[in-house]
């Protein structure tokens, strides 16, 4: 095969789908064929059956909705705080010198390790779930945006100065619009991570949500339900990613033209 040679779109789709088919086929073979103990791994068919029962009888869609709300709530909270701080750090070097060392340190504090502390502070209600996602996302967003903003094209800044921009005008009408697509891309990336944090938050001290259903199913050895829950998370993550991508494209047509 020639390296870096592009693949025609039709073949691309076929190749992409065929791995899913292969994956499920392998899964069906080891489970239905009796190669692994059913207690540890449900087969695809009983997974679908369990999932259907979850949705119809156990009102699992309510858990799904609650998890989605937590992800977006916590993510929104983190974005509202982090985006302005990130822009300020990227634009003004003293602000960066002041905050960067702390943020770099805080970034390595694992959000999951904060859960016991957050439960002490905020109980096991919704606020605690939002805070886990907030802690997990906020420092990441700040740092990535600060770096992107800091590498704003200097020639654009210089051009704006020669056109009469003030320092304030540079930040608002050059630095911010120039980096808006990158900032939106960063948020899309971090939203993906927020899905991980929310499940961790729901595994501990929770009575609702997809994560709760998963930990609950574990005690009943309902592996079909666990796998169904995991797949649901994957699907929602994929959907929100597509939606976010389409939204960015609609918002910043100039960056793709």
């Amino acid at each position, binding site marked *: 095969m020639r390296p870096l040679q592009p693949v025609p779109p039709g073949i691309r789709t076929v190749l992409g789908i065929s791995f899913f088919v292969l994956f499920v086929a392998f899964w069906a073979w080891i489970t239905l064929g009796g190669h692994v103990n059913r207690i540890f791994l449900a087969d695809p068919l009983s997974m679908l059956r369990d999932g259907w029962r979850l949705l119809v009888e156990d009102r699992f869609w309510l858990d799904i909705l609650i998890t989605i709300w937590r992800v977006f709530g916590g993510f929104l909270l983190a974005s509202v705080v982090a985006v302005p701080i990130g822009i300020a750090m990227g634009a003004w070097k003293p602000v960066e010198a002041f905050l960067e060392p702390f943020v770099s340190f805080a970034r390595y504090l694992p959000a999951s390790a904060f859960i016991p502390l957050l439960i002490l502070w905020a109980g096991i209600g919704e606020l605690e779930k939002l805070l886990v996602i907030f802690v997990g996302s906020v420092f990441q967003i700040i740092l990535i945006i600060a770096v992107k903003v800091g590498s704003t094209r200097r020639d*654009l800044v210089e051009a704006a100065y020669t056109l*009469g921009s003030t320092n304030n005008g540079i930040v608002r009408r050059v630095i911010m619009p120039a980096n808006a697509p990158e900032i939106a891309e960063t948020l899309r990336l971090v939203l993906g991570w927020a899905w991980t944090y929310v499940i961790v938050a729901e595994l501990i001290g929770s009575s609702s949500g997809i994560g709760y259903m998963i930990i609950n199913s574990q005690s009943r050895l309902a592996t079909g339900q666990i796998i169904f829950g995991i797949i649901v998370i994957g699907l929602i993550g994929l959907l929100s990613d597509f939606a976010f991508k389409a939204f960015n494209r609609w918002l910043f047509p*100039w960056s793709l033209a």
Partner: protein
Amino acid sequence: MSKLLIEGVSRTFAGVRGGEPVKALMPIDLAVAANDFITILGPSGCGKSTLLRIVAGLEAPSEGRVLLDGKAVTRPGPDRGMVFQSYTLFPWLTVAENIAFGLRERGMPEEERDGIVASYVDLVGLKGFENHWPKQLSGGMQQRTAIARALANDPEILLLDEPFGALDNQTRGLMQELLLGIWERRKKTVLFVTHDIEEAIFMASRVIVMTARPGRIKSDVAVDLPHPRHYTLKTSPEFSALKARLTEDIRVEAMRTAQTA
């Protein structure tokens, strides 16, 4: 009185990793009359762009000062419009919005801006492209927009840093005629940096030749060719004589650069 005065401007860059400081520009004196079209010609790395950036206020001189209409230049401002060699249109703004940028920064209301923008779109021949993004334009069209953007601000002086350097030869020739045509119709003081000898003569009423680094002024040649100039001028005997003379001047400097590099 001179429009622009460059008085003893020099520039020294600090040495890299404790090395010797690098002299980019020897002290330069230059007086530019109003509505003159001056080209600054020199080999690569001679500091001609640095000189232009000092006039723009994007860099500070190590010594000396720049006066525009008798006022010292301390920072960039809308009275000195600049066109860069790299494509510096704001990619998130359309052609029309790019041209309107300076007027908007000044707080001019939209209705007033629209008229001015339309006239400059017309001037650089971009009618029909007002709502295009810069990415959709060719290099020549981008630079035309950049010229319109700088001119729309009605600057006292227009600074151009090898604006056509990245364009192919044919486009470059057309752009030279376009810019010269604009200058012939609406007089403006222009400082135009280039390393292209033909371009330097064709555009200029006066060519300043600079030496290899550290740059200083080697010769100051008046170009008395008649206006309006047509591209056929480039093959006339007068033009060729000037070109032969400047080629000799610049060749010596280019060789010096090649030896030290």
